[in-house]
């Protein structure tokens, strides 16, 4: 079936290094993607988003790359800090053109980012 998935359940990096979290999606109709960060016991927190007409978008210390050819999405975190420890989810949505409507996001399997001192 169509789903959004992540390649690795756990990613361990050294503090200060760059982190790259990957996501594969299979719904070619998806035109909007979001990365969320979820800390233990908290709700998902928006990090960065990207539309399908872009292949790269940068935020503060984070960059999202979109490769529509291979249906691949990645989140790069520069100079990883202890506060970056969390589970990271990618999510996709197909924009509704009906002048309204609220299609639910489809989440992929999370990647637990562990920061080593």
């Amino acid at each position: 079936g169509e789903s959004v998935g992540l390649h690795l359940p756990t990613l361990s990096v050294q503090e200060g290094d760059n982190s790259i979290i990957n996501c594969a999606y299979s719904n070619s109709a998806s035109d909007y993607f979001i990365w969320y960060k979820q800390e233990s016991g908290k709700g998902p927190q928006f990090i960065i988003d990207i539309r399908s007409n872009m292949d790269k978008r940068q935020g503060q210390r984070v960059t999202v790359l979109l490769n529509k050819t291979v249906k691949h999405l990645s989140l790069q975190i520069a100079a990883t800090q202890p506060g970056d420890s969390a589970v990271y989810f990618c999510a996709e949505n197909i924009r509704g053109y009906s002048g309204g409507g609220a299609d639910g996001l489809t989440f992929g399997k999370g990647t637990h980012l562990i920061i080593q001192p």
Partner: protein
Amino acid sequence: AAGVIQSPRHLIKEKRETATLKCYPIPRHDTVYWYQQGPGQDPQFLISFYEKMQSDKGSIPDRFSAQQFSDYHSELNMSSLELGDSALYFCASSQTGQGTNEKLFFGSGTQLSVL
């Protein structure tokens, strides 16, 4: 800035009981979504409402129902609770316009434990 408010934060129920979860969206957000997240799982979409009308439906059991009220807050009603309903339930809200509704802001969730 105001965020999505969910209540209660924790809820303990026994099998076959009912539960009601409440969600207050960010001011001026007209759309709410409900998600269920089991331990170690990704959030699963249950149902969404736009302008007080059901908009999209995911994997919500027939034992569950939800609605959005005139003040845009939403309630998720869960009946005949089962052990498998134990999970973290998130509400999210967004501001929908011209068919765009992508950026969801999540509350802190309600932890439901069914004993």
